[in-house]
């Protein structure tokens, strides 16, 4: 999978020099992140319905290497400020990801819900996890990506734009990360 992404990244960078429509320019993004806003790629987030201000901040952080992920750092490198705005506005228009068909194991769902209440995730991410402004939509995000991201915030290997998530994760246990990812991915 890594090879495919790298190849696509090169294709993207090589082609971005010419004049292209936005649709053409985002095609390489959607190859990994999913055509319909829903990612089918391991550890790669669904982008559909994402808050535009959050998406813009992430693209900016990738470009400036304030958020480290080689492929995305390379992809974002040539983006101008106008590109950042255009891409993030486009991402927000993609359809929201759908929950998986299975409703989930009731016991795990219940544990996840309890963890959400305990740590008040719904305060900033909203009760339906749709997010607002710089706070991302997390509803029906990929479970593997949610778990990975929460773990990275916890050990501070992913620096947030501000320090909110680093602070929040201080008291969340490994087990709770698994429950939270399971629950939020299947939230209906």
């Amino acid at each position, binding site marked *: 999978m890594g090879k495919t992404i790298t190849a696509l990244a090169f294709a993207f960078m090589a082609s971005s020099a010419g004049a292209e429509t936005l649709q053409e320019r985002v095609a390489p993004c959607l190859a990994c992140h999913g055509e319909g806003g829903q990612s089918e790629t391991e550890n790669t987030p669904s982008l559909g319905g994402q808050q535009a201000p959050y998406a813009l901040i992430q693209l900016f952080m990738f470009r400036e290497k304030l958020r480290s992920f080689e492929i995305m750092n390379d992809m974002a490198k040539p983006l101008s400020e106008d590109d950042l705005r255009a891409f993030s506005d486009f991402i927000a228009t993609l359809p929201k990801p759908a929950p998986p068909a299975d409703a989930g194991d009731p016991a795990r769902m219940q544990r996840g819900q309890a963890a959400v209440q305990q740590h008040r995730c719904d305060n900033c991410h909203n009760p339906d996890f749709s997010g607002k*402004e*710089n706070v991302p939509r997390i509803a029906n995000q990929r479970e593997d990506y949610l778990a990975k991201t929460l773990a990275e915030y916890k050990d501070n290997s992913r620096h947030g734009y*501000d320090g909110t998530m680093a602070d929040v994760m*201080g008291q969340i246990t490994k087990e709770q990360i698994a429950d939270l990812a399971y629950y939020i991915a299947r939230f209906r």
Partner: protein
Amino acid sequence: MKSDLLAPRSLWLAGALFGALTLGAAAQQPPNPPAAAPPAASPPPASAPAAAPLPPGSPLIGRPTGNEAAAKLAPVTPPPIAASPDKLPTAKLKVPPGFNIEVYAAGMANARSLAEGDKGTVFVGSRLVGNVYAITNKDGKRTVKTLASGLYRPNGVAFKNGTLYIAELSKVSRIDNVEDNLDNPPKPTVIYDNLPKDEAHGWKFIAIGPDNKLYVPVGQPGNNVLHDDDHGQIRRMNLDGSGAEVIARGVRNTVGFDWNPETRQLYFTDNGRDWMSEDVPEDELNRITKVGEHFGAPYCLQGNIVDPEFGWGKSCSEFTAPVALMGPHSASLGMRFYTGNLFPKAYKNAILVARHGSWNRSKKVGGDVLLVKLNKDGTVKSTEPFITGFLDNNSYIGRPVDVLPMKDGSVLVSDDWNGAVYRVTYGKPKMAAQ
């Protein structure tokens, strides 16, 4: 049920404070009021058993539950991209008659603290985007350069004798002869990193005093927390980072200070806690009259309110009261004495204070620059608006962070919402023309 919860809590507090006093004495420090307690991560749950205590840094600590108006409030995060020059709100900003305001430089995302170099370069820190900028001014033509990038929350900048000092979240660095190397600056050299790494109130304003020492604050690691001996204070040190000492305690989060040119006393702004109420506590303007003074937080707020949680057994008379209150949740940040000669006489040695503006209040306050006039004895005579208009219909069109009187008598104001720096002059507008 309620008393069952309260009893162990107050016992725990008493134990914590006793421990702090004993520790302070053992360390043989100069007389310090008790500011310390075990790390705030350890208090027992105070609220409903369903919800664990929020982490110490969370801005949501103390937020009332089940209140719709409160649920709408959250910190306001500025965009990572600077506004284009034609979108800046200069036309909506109001200054007193005879004054002019113009854009000095734009295109500096998240522009925060300001410092002026010997050769007229203006250095600009940032909190969220990792950059320090340099604005050069050649015959009225101003150019913005990104001097350093990839730094970690480089909010603070200070300048002395050719050297730029940069304060990141948990370290202070210097770049010597910086104005001679703006196009190819060396990497900053770390001079001091004995600092906590908390994100909450971890970004720093720094300045160099008339005693030629570098002043570095360490905020409290959260909205309203008991904390260890390394937080909630202002330190000073030699310019090579040696000889650090704590000169003030009970400081929640100061993001601006300067020295009275007549008395040489340090004045600093301090941001009050959130979620207690819409109208109190107010932010503070404080004055240090002796080393080691304690300014109250988190026990006494705004000089006359004992904290509902941590104030039990305390009295505000134990702490130094502010010289002025700056408005509830107003986020009073950068402040400097105006010592120039361009402005009218009434401005001489008065303080300009940038109020970034509130988030923790339904009807926002701040989003302006205030003029604070002092009496001969250093107490506050009056407070009045100087620049207004950043707050428009309860939302921000800009947010002032720092003020910087320049050698030519004009005053610069940074705006981290738009990534711009404005310049205020007095007299015929042609003086302000580029």
